[in-house]
């Protein structure tokens, strides 16, 4: 397995209650190479390298799945909403077109 990429999950707003609808932001450091750029040094075309599948899940139950193409920017950012049903753990799994797999999780702690 390739080394873990830097990634981050953010909840907006930071403080929320059960039943609130919050934003779940996911950011990952990834080149998202399109496969059309030339390497300036070697003159060869850089192979495509991009994230293609992302799954947002709550306690192992997926609530949003995404299929993504190389047209998404470098170091991509994805934001979806979630209606907080209670305590749990948000996990984001993602794979890229080279078969690299990674995941990131964060605890969901509603107050009140």
């Amino acid at each position, binding site marked *: 397995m390739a080394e873990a990429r830097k990634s981050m999950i953010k909840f907006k707003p930071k403080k929320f209650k059960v039943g609130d*609808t919050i*934003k779940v932001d996911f950011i990952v450091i990834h080149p998202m190479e*399109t496969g*059309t*750029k030339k390497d300036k040094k070697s003159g060869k075309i850089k192979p495509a390298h991009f994230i293609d599948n992302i799954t947002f899940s*709550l306690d192992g139950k*997926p*609530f*949003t*799945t*995404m*299929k*993504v*193409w*190389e*047209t*998404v*920017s*470098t170091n*991509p*950012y*994805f*934001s*979806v*909403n*979630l*209606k907080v*049903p209670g305590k749990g753990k948000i996990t984001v799994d993602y794979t890229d077109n080279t078969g690299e797999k990674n995941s990131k999780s964060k605890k969901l702690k509603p107050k009140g």
Partner: protein
Amino acid sequence: MKRRNFIKSFCAASAVAATMTPSALLAKEAPKGGNLLSYDAAVSAITGGKAVTDSAKVSLTVPEIAENGAVVPVKVNIESPMTDADHVKAIHVLSTKNGNARCADVMLTPLNGKGYFATRIKLNGTQDVVALVEMSDGSFLRAAKPVKVTIGGCG
């Protein structure tokens, strides 16, 4: 478009159209197809030939002028109660002139609470950004907005 790419995308689109039944569309899976799809091919791969209506329910937020085509923020909001019976099933973000028209297919569930998705995409020139939304009753809604790009983001 180059001949080879055109044939490839055409084959992919027709293959998708042939294999995709309405029940396959209802399944919670992204539409398949080749990697280099033109806008029209991508739309037909997603909708399977169904009618698409422009709707005020879908609000698409993009910058009018993007100085850097490599980072164009896109925000999609859909008015929907998000109940089990009536919710947003999928949001497709497309561009009209990129080599690959498709940017992201987002499959939502009622747990999301709101029909919302935001990301950042690359645009290789001035063109329209389109949000194609599939509702749970199988209808397709659309919103499009032009974006002026000063420096393309794909070269």
